[in-house]
């Protein structure tokens, strides 16, 4: 398959799984924004506005993480219910193109949510050049992590109902409990190590260090060692999950 045809395949998957269904059923868009906005609303109200800015970074992370939940459900649905994966396997489309196409199509769903939170951030966050680069890098990495997690989980499930059960657990572990919507300093120092068991804490650390609330200092003080640790953990985890998914996943059944 030529590079041009690979790109056509990739684009077709993005259209089939992302753009066309989103146009047909715009409620999908609302669905991806509802939870992150609801969290932002509650932390802002409960903190009398003090956590509005950190809530925006939390919203960005939660929005992009939802692509992982979406991808595991879609992959299982396409594999087990529609047999669409079989149609794809018995075609010129190669496995990496399918993976990339599915991952990008899920990213499409998170674009409106990201736009909403970035716009809200204009009022609450200072977008410096360095902070913006950190923001883009972190979101790309969280998206890659979420996609890898989605692919890994999808290889273990055979029924879409299993993903319904797993999604709230993931949400609790990755977004509700860890200091994503609030600064890690809110957790007593002796318990902060527990927060670092969740990979999203590292992503939140990066954003809380790189993006500051307007007119204030950042929530997390600058530290090169912590910066390296956060990037390193996220990259290593994403690579490990992709490796696990690639090892477990079977494009052709044995």
């Amino acid at each position, binding site marked *: 398959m030529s590079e041009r045809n690979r790109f*056509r395949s990739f684009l077709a998957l993005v259209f089939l799984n992302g753009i066309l269904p989103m146009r047909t059923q715009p409620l999908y868009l609302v669905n991806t924004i509802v939870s992150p906005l609801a969290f932002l609303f509650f932390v802002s109200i409960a903190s009398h506005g003090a956590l509005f800015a950190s809530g925006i970074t939390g919203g960005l992370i939660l929005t992009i993480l939802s692509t992982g939940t979406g991808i595991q459900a879609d992959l299982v649905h396409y594999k087990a219910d529609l047999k669409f994966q*079989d149609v*794809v396997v018995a075609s010129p489309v190669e496995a990496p193109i399918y993976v990339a196409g599915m991952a990008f199509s899920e990213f499409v769903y998170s674009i409106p949510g990201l736009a909403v939170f970035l716009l809200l951030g204009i009022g609450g966050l200072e977008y410096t050049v360095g902070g913006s680069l950190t923001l883009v890098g972190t979101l790309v990495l969280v998206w890659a992590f979420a996609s890898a997690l989605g692919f890994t989980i999808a290889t273990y499930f055979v029924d879409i109902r299993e993903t319904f059960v797993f999604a709230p657990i993931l949400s609790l572990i990755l977004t509700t409990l860890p200091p994503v919507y609030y600064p890690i300093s809110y957790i007593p120092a002796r318990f902060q190590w527990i927060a670092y068991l969740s990979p999203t804490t590292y992503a939140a650390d990066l954003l809380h260090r790189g993006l500051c609330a307007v007119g204030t200092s950042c929530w997390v003080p600058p530290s090169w060692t912590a910066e390296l640790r956060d990037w390193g953990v996220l990259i290593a985890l994403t690579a490990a999950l992709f490796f696990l998914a690639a090892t477990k996943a079977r494009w052709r059944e044995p």
Partner: protein
Amino acid sequence: MTTALSALHLSKTYRYRGGSTQALDDVTFDIPAGETYGLIGRNGAGKTTFLRIAGTLLMPTSGTVMVLGRDIRTEERAIRTRIAMVPQESRPLYFVSTEELILWYLRMRGMDNLESRRRTNGVIEELGLTDVRSRLVSLLSGGQRRRVMVAMVLASDAEVLFLDEPTTGLDPLARREVWAAISRATRERRTVLLTTHYLDEAEALSAHLALLEGGRLRVEGSPESIRSRVQLPYRVTVDTSWTVEELGSYGSVSPIVNGHLLFTREKEAREVVQAALARGSRVSLAPVSLEDIFLQLVGRPLDEDPPAEKEAA
């Protein structure tokens, strides 16, 4: 005559905790290029397993299949550029229209926009999907969805098409439209491997047939050659003015509603028909159907429950 597919001592055993099931057992046959080949057999006979192996979805336990001269074990990438499949019980993606699904499937296969549109328009017209071309797939009936799946692969440029029970759930008219489209595919010198429960469909479409039973190839050849292998190649139906005893000397008799069904040879068939006409009885004569042949070869009709799974050691 060139060969599109060759199954060579193909076996497949599904292993699971506590046992295994032999789905295919030393199956060997050739499928000529440019024709429709029917794979028939009951549920669990191994048809879908064969299709999945030949379609590079499943690895065999032993043996192999050569598709267009390439080995499915080692050259699957090259094979996949030249095949397309409608899997059993597959359904189209829901939140796109009929036209979009076919068009983007073709684009997914790497086809350019102009050619994709031309082929999409052609197959929509041919399969009677014009009225629903802009309708969301989620709003189509089960039969229409099945037709959309078939339309996708027929519109493709694949040289070998695998259709696993493509007309299940279709009404008679829709089945005929799919048949016509499959026939056109073979006129374009494409090879179609078709599995079906409908023996009339297999007979109408297939230049050659293979009957699988319990994972083994029981009979293979053209419908005519298969028919010639049965001992009683004619079926005569007569009304109740005849008794079983009277008919018994001519061949094998079974009771049917309002009469008798007799399987017999050509000479005896003529005699019975002449005698029945002389007596003023209602009588009909026809060559045995595939259903009858299946019954004679396997001993059970196609829609009867399969025997218990064959456990491998």
